[in-house]
């Protein structure tokens, strides 16, 4: 597999950087670039000849992994904080996304919130409106769950008539998965005393956009969490520090970050982000509204564009699958453009509304072909072919794209995005 092999120690920094460019540019050159400065046996490696670095207060990834970073970063004209960054799926392997690589979608930048000064207000159709400090929230009983978050605009570029020349992370990286720990929202709603006629909750963030969405009461009382921790540590600022809403399986925009207000109401508030955005315009000009759960979906992360093959032989096809409706039960992989399919191995644990990794060994004969993956969830939902998906929904929806992704493998080992 053309996982770029990093240059080894003993190579001067500048030379390493030059090598990195070459390595990233072509998997075929990776082996020779690595050999250049390597300590082949019987030579003793340089790093064994003196003690290494000391302890550190907060660890960082290896300096040889600096190229693994969020990708596709873009913000609206004249802004730095109204846009998105994406998880580099093709560089990772595992169900948990490192917190620093979790995708971002902000509407007014990342606020700098002092937790001692932050407050959460619950009001509206309740017996007793309440204000909570973060310190108070930290004393409530907690739950932990591993859930993906996916922006509903993930893979939106795939609605385009021509396949984009992008990496797997750049097309599909608005999905990430974390262990989230916090207080069940139900507990706080019960403390406030929700009136029987209440059907919705307006959730509002403390960012400069005061980003707001209407949450169905049923979801709020079911599995909604006020998350305080992400992957064992307090939330990262870009993921809603000090407290965010987490709605498992629902489109990411609804899991409001930097949560400051919950207003219990009888009808949806019809905020900007549930009317003019995050509604799915169909081919006939009608738009679907409140399309909450993210559909069953998968993508092959290796091989993928930028992660090509270096000659015929045995490779492991790897990828990720997820469904907002439940648990992934099957991922099928085709190495002949969809003519035949084989079941990939699912990597345990396989959890509801969490990223599920899949693997399948593949002997590449060296000829051009097309790779596809197709996920099925426990509701029986199957990822559709792109042709079918576009026929059903048109090219204008922007959101909730979940069709099968196809990668073309060229005879030289290069991988390209194709519609096939």
């Amino acid at each position, binding site marked *: 597999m053309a996982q770029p092999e990093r240059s080894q120690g003993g190579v001067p920094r500048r030379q390493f950087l030059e090598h990195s460019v070459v390595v990233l540019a072509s998997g075929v050159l990776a082996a020779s670039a690595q050999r250049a400065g390597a300590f082949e046996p019987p030579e003793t490696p340089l790093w064994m000849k003196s003690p290494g670095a000391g302890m550190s207060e907060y660890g960082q990834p290896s300096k040889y992994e600096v190229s693994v970073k969020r990708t596709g970063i873009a913000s609206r004209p004249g802004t730095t904080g109204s846009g998105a960054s994406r998880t580099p799926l093709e560089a990772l392997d595992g169900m948990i996304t490192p917190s620093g690589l979790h995708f971002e979608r902000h509407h007014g930048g990342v606020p700098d919130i002092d937790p001692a000064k932050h407050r959460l207000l619950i009001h509206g159709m309740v017996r007793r409106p309440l*204000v909570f400090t973060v310190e*108070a929230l930290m004393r409530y009983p907690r739950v932990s769950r591993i859930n993906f978050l996916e922006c509903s605009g993930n893979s939106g570029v795939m609605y385009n008539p021509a396949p984009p020349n992008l990496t797997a992370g750049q097309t599909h990286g608005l999905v990430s998965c974390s262990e989230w720990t916090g207080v069940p929202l139900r507990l706080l709603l019960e403390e406030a005393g929700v009136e029987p006629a209440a059907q919705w909750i307006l959730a509002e963030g403390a960012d400069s956009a005061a980003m707001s969405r209407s949450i169905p009461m049923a979801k709020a009382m079911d599995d909604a969490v006020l998350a305080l921790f992400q992957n064992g540590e307090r939330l990262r600022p870009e993921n809603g520090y000090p407290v965010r809403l987490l709605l498992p399986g629902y489109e990411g925009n609804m899991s409001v970050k930097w949560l400051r207000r919950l207003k219990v109401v009888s009808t949806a508030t019809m905020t900007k982000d549930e009317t003019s955005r995050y509604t799915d315009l169909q081919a006939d000009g009608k738009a679907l509204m409140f399309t909450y759960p993210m559909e069953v979906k998968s993508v092959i992360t290796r091989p993928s564009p930028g992660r090509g093959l270096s000659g015929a032989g045995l490779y492991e096809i790897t990828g990720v699958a997820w469904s907002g409706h439940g648990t992934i039960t099957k991922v099928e992989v085709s190495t002949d453009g969809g003519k035949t399919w084989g079941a990939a191995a699912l990597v345990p644990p396989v959890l509801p509304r969490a990223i599920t990794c899949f693997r399948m060994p593949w002997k590449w004969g060296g000829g051009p072909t097309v790779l596809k993956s197709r996920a099925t969830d426990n509701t029986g939902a199957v990822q559709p072919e792109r042709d079918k998906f576009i026929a059903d929904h048109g090219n204008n929806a922007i959101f909730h794209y979940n069709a099968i992704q196809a990668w073309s493998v060229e005879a030289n080992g290069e991988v390209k995005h194709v519609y096939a």
Partner: protein
Amino acid sequence: MSTRDLAWAAVALALMGCAGATVTETPNLGRTATPAQIAGWDISIQPDGSGLPSGSGTPAKGAAVYEQKCQACHGVRGAGQPNDPLVGGKGSLASKTPARTIGSYWPYATTIFDYVRRAMPYLQPQSLTNDEVYAVTAYLLRLNGIIGESDEINAQTLPKVSMPNRDNFIVVYPIKPAPR
């Protein structure tokens, strides 16, 4: 029955007790919010107009506010560039190049007031007075041909504004229909 058996029986009983419990005890640390606290933070507007403050504005007054506070990002008379256009696009939604603007797409007029007040201008959110927000809302509705030149927008008139694309949204929660 041995001591060990008794211990296991006790554990089993305890587990059954847990399984039967549905109420989670909490520390009840919420402080009662005062009306003044709520009033200061409650900035959301419902589609029936509840939450709208007193005040009013006209398209003419809104034009002046728009030119000063909005035009740099949204273009002359809402034409767009560098950011989203706020007018036009009527009849484009089923075409290959749909333009989703306030006039062609937004289903509720109350959303304009809610969003402008909470998030605009991008660099100075929540800086406009309620009268200024009403006026800008009136101006945007006028630019889209939805209200008349001299119509006043206030808490009573705004929720009654009929948006052209209102009936073209299909609410799919809680059941999403199968693709056609």
